[in-house]
Structure formats: structure tokens, C-alpha cells
């Protein structure tokens, strides 16, 4: 038996926080510093505002409620489409990974449609569903579903045959093997697919809102261009970056917390 060697005493809390976040903080600080220097001394044009100006504008836009309104509109669309797309994609992917006939039947759809970018589908989406919520949610579902399907199906195919055989020899039925072996073994792949889909959703929602929307971060960008509100454009860009960063961190954190043990290796 291996005995555990005594571990060094854990570092104190501030030290640990510093170790965990110092890299990020310095990284972000340098980003804003370079932006500031570039805008102030290299470009020095009203078309490239320095960070301080953009933050001041952001504070104003938050106070008037405009920014949060746009932000909330985009988040709602992403969440609705992303959740619906995942809920549809996971069972389809599981079925495709489990049953060869289903795979043969549905592969033409996934292999054909996934090469038509969601951005290209904006045109039809607007014609079919108008410029309201329905067209945006349709597009996010479209951009989410194929990645989730493909990753889920790949996860099912990647299950070690001995995991299934062991369950059979332990007396599990087909349904039990599906729910107690195949499904949990596929969780890491499903989550990876969802994380990739989330990144796609950002691209798609901005593109869709640029073309046809009454509010949202994309619409804010478009208005900024129309009325030459360069500061507004930058506020929207920074918000998108931060939102994406936060959402992705949350995803990584939840994968780590809830599914860290669902390691595909063992």
C-alpha cells in the first residue's frame, strides 16, 4: 500500500489568492495598459478611445439602464437557444452513438448542415421567423445542436468495450447499461461539446443582432456605427469579451466541480 507522505503546510489565504489570480490580474492589467498606450500615443484618434473613456461611457450606460437592457437581451437569447439546443442535441447524439442505423440515418443531416454556418442561416431565419426573438433562438439552437450531437456521439463511441462487458457480466440489463454506464461515461464529452457550442453562440448572436434586432449587444454595435458613437461600440466589445470570459470560466468551473471525477481515462 502506498502511504501518503506528509504534505507541506498549505499557504495562507492571501498567498493562495495571489498564486491563483496574480497571473490573470497582471495579464488583464497589461492588456488595458497596452490599449491605453496604443490609443493615446500611437493612434491618438477619436476613432480609438482609451480605456478610461470607454469605462466612463460604460458607467453612464449602466446608470441609464441602456447597457443592461442590451446585455440582458443577448444573454436571454443565448441561454434559451443554448439550453434548447443542448437538450435536443444530447439525446440525438446518444442515439447516434448507440445505434448504428440511427447514426446512418442522421449523419447526412449533421454532416451536411454543420458546414452551413449559422451566420449564413440568418437570412432564412429572418425570413421564416421575423426579426423577433424566434429567429435569434432558432439560430442559437442551430449553432449549438450539431456540436453537441457530434461530441456526444463521439463520447458514446469512445466508451471502453470492457466497461460494457463488465456490466453485462455483473447482470446489468441493456437499459441499466445505458443509464449507469454509457451516459455517465459520456458526460465529459457532452460538457466539452456544450462549452464549444457556447463560444459559437456568442458569434452567432452578435451577427444576428447586427442584422436584425431591436436590442442586444450586436444591435448596440450597429447603432454605434450608424451614429458614429465609437465609445458605445467599444463598450459593447468589452462587454462581450468580459461576458464570454465569465461564462467560459463558469463552465470550466462547473465541469471541474461536478464532473471532475467523470474522467474519460478510467
Amino acid at each position, binding site marked *: *500500500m*502506498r502511504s501518503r507522505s506528509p504534505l507541506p503546510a498549505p499557504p495562507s489565504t492571501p498567498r493562495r489568492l495571489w498564486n491563483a489570480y496574480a497571473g490573470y490580474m497582471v495579464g488583464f492589467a497589461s492588456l488595458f495598459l497596452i490599449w491605453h498606450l496604443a490609443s493615446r500615443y500611437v493612434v491618438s484618434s477619436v476613432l480609438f478611445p482609451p480605456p478610461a473613456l470607454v469605462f466612463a461611457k460604460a458607467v453612464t450606460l449602466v446608470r441609464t439602464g441602456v447597457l443592461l437592457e442590451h446585455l440582458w437581451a443577448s444573454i436571454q437569447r443565448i441561454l434559451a437557444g443554448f439550453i434548447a439546443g443542448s437538450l435536443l442535441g444530447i439525446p440525438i447524439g446518444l442515439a447516434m452513438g448507440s445505434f448504428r442505423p440511427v447514426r446512418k440515418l442522421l449523419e447526412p443531416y449533421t454532416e451536411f448542415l454543420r458546414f452551413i454556418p449559422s451566420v449564413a442561416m440568418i437570412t432564412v431565419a429572418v425570413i421564416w421567423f421575423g426579426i423577433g426573438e424566434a429567429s435569434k433562438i432558432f439560430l442559437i439552437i442551430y449553432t449549438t445542436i450539431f456540436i453537441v450531437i457530434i461530441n456526444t456521439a463521439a463520447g458514446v463511441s469512445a466508451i*471502453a468495450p*470492457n*466497461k460494457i*462487458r*463488465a*456490466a*453485462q*457480466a*455483473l*447482470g*446489468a*440489463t441493456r437499459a*441499466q447499461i445505458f443509464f*449507469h*454506464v454509457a451516459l*455517465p*461515461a459520456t*458526460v465529459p464529452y457532452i460538457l466539452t461539446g456544450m462549452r464549444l457550442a457556447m463560444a459559437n453562440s456568442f458569434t452567432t448572436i452578435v451577427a444576428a443582432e447586427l442584422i436584425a434586432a431591436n436590442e442586444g449587444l450586436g444591435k448596440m454595435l450597429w447603432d454605434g456605427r450608424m451614429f458614429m458613437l465609437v465609445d458605445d461600440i467599444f463598450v459593447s466589445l468589452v462587454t462581450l469579451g468580459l461576458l464570454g470570459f465569465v461564462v467560459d470560466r463558469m463552465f470550466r468551473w462547473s465541469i471541474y466541480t461536478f464532473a471532475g*471525477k*467523470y*474522467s*474519460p*481515462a*478510467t
Partner: protein
Amino acid sequence: MALVAFRDVQKTYRSLQGVDDLAVEHFDVEIEPEEFFCLVGPSGCGKTTVLKMLAGFEAPTAGQILMAGRPVTGPSRDRGVVFQGDDSLYGWLTAVENVEFGLRMRGVARAERRERALRYLELVGLRGQESKYPAELSGGMKQRIQIARALVNEPTMLLMDEPFAALDAQTRSLMQAELATIWRTTRTTVLFITHDIDEAVTLGTRIGVMRAGPRSQLKGVIEVALNGARSRTDDVFLTYYKQVYEMIRDEVAKSLARTA
């Protein structure tokens, strides 16, 4: 009546070129209850194929496999399986949850199955490690989980496919000693696949030697009349070792000549 009977069993695999390869042909053997039957042979001789057919994972192309007089039609919990690698363990379940798996599938109540699983973890020397995940355990401990997971189901028979082949030498001989003890305690019939003559003589009550593949079959069976602890330095042990070795030597040479 024999517990297991292979009657003229044949297994063909279709190769990628579409040609049928005969892995095993005219394979006959009978295994008695409470026996520890070791099957040895050069690599590629179809030892694992024989185990997979008895487990019910693969069907023979011809011939018949009987278990307690009835033909084997598929996997069943009367034949517990211990695999060579650790990829059969469920990485999202703790050690004790892995062991409980079979009982849980059968609907045994939570408290009872936990108690039984812990008893078998104790038997394989894993008490205290029950709430660890497989990824946190060493290779030897993972094989112990597999053994406990199979035994807790109380199978008529245990099928072991080179279960210690991936372990280091020290861990392997420790595990062999523990398996011998477990077998003496539970008296479960065992079919043990190995390519290691030393291991076969250490554990088996009978040793079946297979011919080199393809078209492999049983070359002969040696009864091992060693009782109690078996020491590698005993003269009797060496006598059996030599007997198996001489039987297998030509087969290994043939197998090397074919693959070279």
C-alpha cells in the same frame, strides 16, 4: 458433471482483408467445480478468445460451450469477469460504489449492498480506501476492486484474463498470494488466463497449455498436486515448472517464427 465443458469449439475472425482467420479450432476442455484452472500459451494463441466465449461476450463459430450442462448464450452474473486493464472500472464511482454495481443493478437495498461491498473490499485488502476514485488508486488496488466487484455478486465462476500482467513484479506476487488465499476461502471455480508459467504453477490446480495460434487448440493438461503454500524454490514446484515449460517452449518458438 463438469461445471464447464468446451466441446470441439471453433472461433473464426474476419480480418480487415475479408479473409476468415481461424483463431481456435477443436478446442476441448472440462473444468470441474472448485478448480483453479490456468490456461497458458504463447501470445496470440487465443487464450483470451476462449475466455471471451465462456464469458458470453463472443459466440463460438462452431462447437458448444456448456455451463452446468446448459449452453452459454450470453454474459451472465454466474460468470464474474476480471479484465487485464483498468478500463472496465467506472471512473465516476468510488471504490465501494464500483464493488456495489452488480448488487445495485439487482436492486439490493442500499444499506445491505454497502455492507456486503465493504466485506469484499476487506477480503481483497482495500478497507479504508472505499471512498477513493479509481484514478486515485494504484494498479494493484484497481485490480483488487475488480476482483471484489466480481466476487460480491457471488458468481459460480470467476474468469480472469491476465489480471496481473500489467503490475510490477512485487505487486504481482503479492496479488497472487492474496488471490490464492481468497480462492481457498471462497472456493469459487476459476479460469485464469496467463502467459506466465510461474504464475500458473503458483496458482493452478490444473494447467492447460495451448498450441501456438492460429488454429490453436489445447496441447495438454497438467494436474498440479501442490497443496498449501507454494514456494518457487521447492523442487516439486520446479518440476511442474519444467513440465509446463517443455510443453510450451516449442509453441513459443512457432509463434515467434510466425510473427517475425
